[in-house]
């Protein structure tokens, strides 16, 4: 009895030595789902940052003769080697005169091995280092040990270079895997930038509203209610309609972020306001006031920092909204425009049912959107469980 009590007492004493942040972090680490989500996100962000290195081709590198090429990766055993080696054949197609379907042919005279750090198109790694190395690519061809004779003559290599398609090719013969890597840049960053803007607006407006109360609060709350009543998707479409449909990708990107955070700040401001209302009456705020601190100083230095952990949780939960908004708009042709790659506009090819039926790999970008959204949701849930056990950030879902 006494031994157990001492042990418990010691462990409690040990826990008490940790800050609430450390405690939260410890809870977060124990949450396996949240940690899995975090590692998925790290992977996706890495892909986004090093997209031009990881992708074998650039987003607009196209070979029309490989339009809708299915995913291809073959494995061969090399004597004496334990692991099988991946390789590809050159492929081309023609149309079946009767069914009008694509018929694929392989040039089985040469194998193109898949190698690491292969030479390819030149790019700037991280925007600085000029290099032509890619993480994966095709090496020099190896003649097939037993060349198979085909009746159909293969086009020469000038016209039809060998291509590495992990995930198949799209309508214009571009590598879907490469485009997914480039698309990650847009989808992974838009949520961060969007929620950063939402963060600034929501913190400021919610903070002022909760701190001053009274008439200021009343006016701001009515304003929030109004913004929350806006049919978001319709307003997005309407505002988008005011601008030319074909704009450079960077401008569209900024436009999407601004429009979406303009719609999204209100809900967040309400959360902040609620938190500020409760913090406002704490002793340390009174103390600051008694010491003669100015209102902006109290709000910025004493009140808002204490809402920070809740704010970050709410924002993590808000990021999927931005990702979905961008991909939705891009999918229907109002977001990022075609040669540029985004997960949304890659999906626009899948809007024709015949395409899904014949070339199901055009659906892959949707899987990545799903993955990113799930990961952010799970991480948000985990953060909430770890840092907000009282459930202050729980709100009515919109």
């Amino acid at each position, binding site marked *: 009895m006494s031994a157990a009590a001492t042990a418990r007492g010691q462990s409690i004493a040990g826990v008490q030595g940790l800050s609430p942040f450390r405690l939260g972090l410890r809870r977060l680490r124990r949450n396996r789902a949240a940690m899995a989500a975090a590692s998925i996100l790290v992977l996706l962000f890495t892909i986004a940052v090093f997209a031009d290195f990881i992708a074998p081709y650039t987003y607009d590198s196209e070979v029309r003769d490989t339009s809708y090429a299915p995913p291809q990766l073959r494995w061969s055993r090399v004597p004496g080697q334990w692991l099988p080696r991946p390789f590809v054949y050159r492929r081309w197609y023609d149309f079946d005169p009767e069914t009008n379907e694509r018929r694929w042919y392989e040039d089985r005279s040469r194998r193109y091995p898949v190698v690491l750090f292969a030479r390819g198109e030149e790019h700037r790694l991280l925007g600085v280092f000029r290099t032509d190395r890619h993480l994966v690519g095709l090496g020099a061809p190896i003649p097939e040990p037993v060349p198979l004779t085909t009746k159909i003559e293969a086009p020469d290599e000038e016209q039809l270079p060998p291509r590495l398609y992990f995930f198949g090719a799209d309508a214009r013969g571009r590598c879907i895997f490469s485009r997914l890597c480039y698309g990650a840049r847009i989808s992974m960053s838009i949520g961060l930038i969007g929620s950063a803007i939402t963060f600034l607006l929501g913190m400021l407006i919610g903070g002022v509203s909760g701190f001053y109360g009274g008439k200021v609060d009343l006016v701001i709350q009515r304003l929030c209610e109004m913004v929350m009543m806006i049919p*978001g998707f*319709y307003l997005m479409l309407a505002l*988008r309609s*005011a*601008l030319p449909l074909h704009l450079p990708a960077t401008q569209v990107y900024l436009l999407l972020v601004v429009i979406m955070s303009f719609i999204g700040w209100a809900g967040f401001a309400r959360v902040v306001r609620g938190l500020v209302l409760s913090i406002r009456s704490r002793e340390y705020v009174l103390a600051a006031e008694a010491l003669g601190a100015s209102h902006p100083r109290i709000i910025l230095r004493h009140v808002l920092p204490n809402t920070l952990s809740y704010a970050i949780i709410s924002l993590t939960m808000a990021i999927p909204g931005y990702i979905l908004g961008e991909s*939705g708009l891009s999918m229907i042709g*109002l977001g990022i425009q075609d040669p540029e790659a985004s997960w949304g506009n890659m999906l626009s090819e899948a809007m024709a049912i015949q395409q*899904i039926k014949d070339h199901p790999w055009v659906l892959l970008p949707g899987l990545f*959107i799903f993955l990113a*959204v799930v990961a952010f949701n799970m991480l948000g849930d985990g953060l909430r469980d770890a840092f907000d056990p009282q459930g202050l950030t729980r709100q009515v879902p919109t």
Partner: protein
Amino acid sequence: MLTHILRRILIAVPLLLAMSFVTFIFMTVVYRGDPLAQYRLDPTTSEESLNRLKKQYHLDRPPIVRYFLWLGGILRGDLGFSLHQKQHVWPIIRSRIGPTLLLSLSAMCCAWLLAVPLGIQCAVHQGKFRDRFFSFLAFLGMAVPSFFFALLLLWGISVVGVLPLGGYQSPQFDSFSFGRKVADIAAHLILPTLVLGFGAMGGLQRIMRGNMLEVLRSQYVTTARAKGLSETRVVYWHALRTAINPMITIFGYELSGLLSGAALMEIVINWPGLGNLMLAAVRAQDQPLVMGNMLISGVLLILGNLVADILLALSDPRISYS
């Protein structure tokens, strides 16, 4: 109650004004598209008739005057004239309201019919396999992008081939008997209803589960059990009525969320609703149609919120808006 409804409408009016004003300013001042562009392209249109059109639709006036003329028209029940479609805006929009409402309402019914029983099951069997499974389902519903889910289902259907692949009616719809017409629309409705309903279900189910857990811990439930009532009666009669109450608050939010979400779904499956119309109008830079559509969808949302408020007051005697 009446004053509350009036107040809600009073808030809605400036909102609609602001929304339409922003849209208008964007479309006329920022973009400055030429509404007569397609008439100019037609060589048979004379300069004279162009000028006449300009005068008739006040295109020669400054934008701010045109905005007020548009507002005045609305007060007289005239949403304007779409030069692009050569038709009044209201009849175009009116024909689209039905399908959009039908889709939103059926998706909502689907979501509620799934969420409430599943939420109850989760709460009653807390921590067991059933709870975990349905909670996972709810999580999936919240996370899977509706358009991606719809495309996946379309793929499945195109392989199996039992349901229509998008759209609202079969091509031969007009020749059908009444019964077949209903069946036809119902068959087209299944896919989008499932997708939107599944998406909306997740959040609802989580809240229902939370409410139910809280209620099941309360003392009157213990009393009911102590009285010897059957567990079914305790859960579905005593606890459910209290647990479902807060759900009605969400009703309005849910409806507005569905109306917005339905827009994208309409585009993906080619459903002839307001969202699809909006996209067409945006692509054609058809300003009167965009404005009218914006206004009508705003009104629909506000009506949805109002209905939610009224329902809440009816269901919870503690709430009176006075």
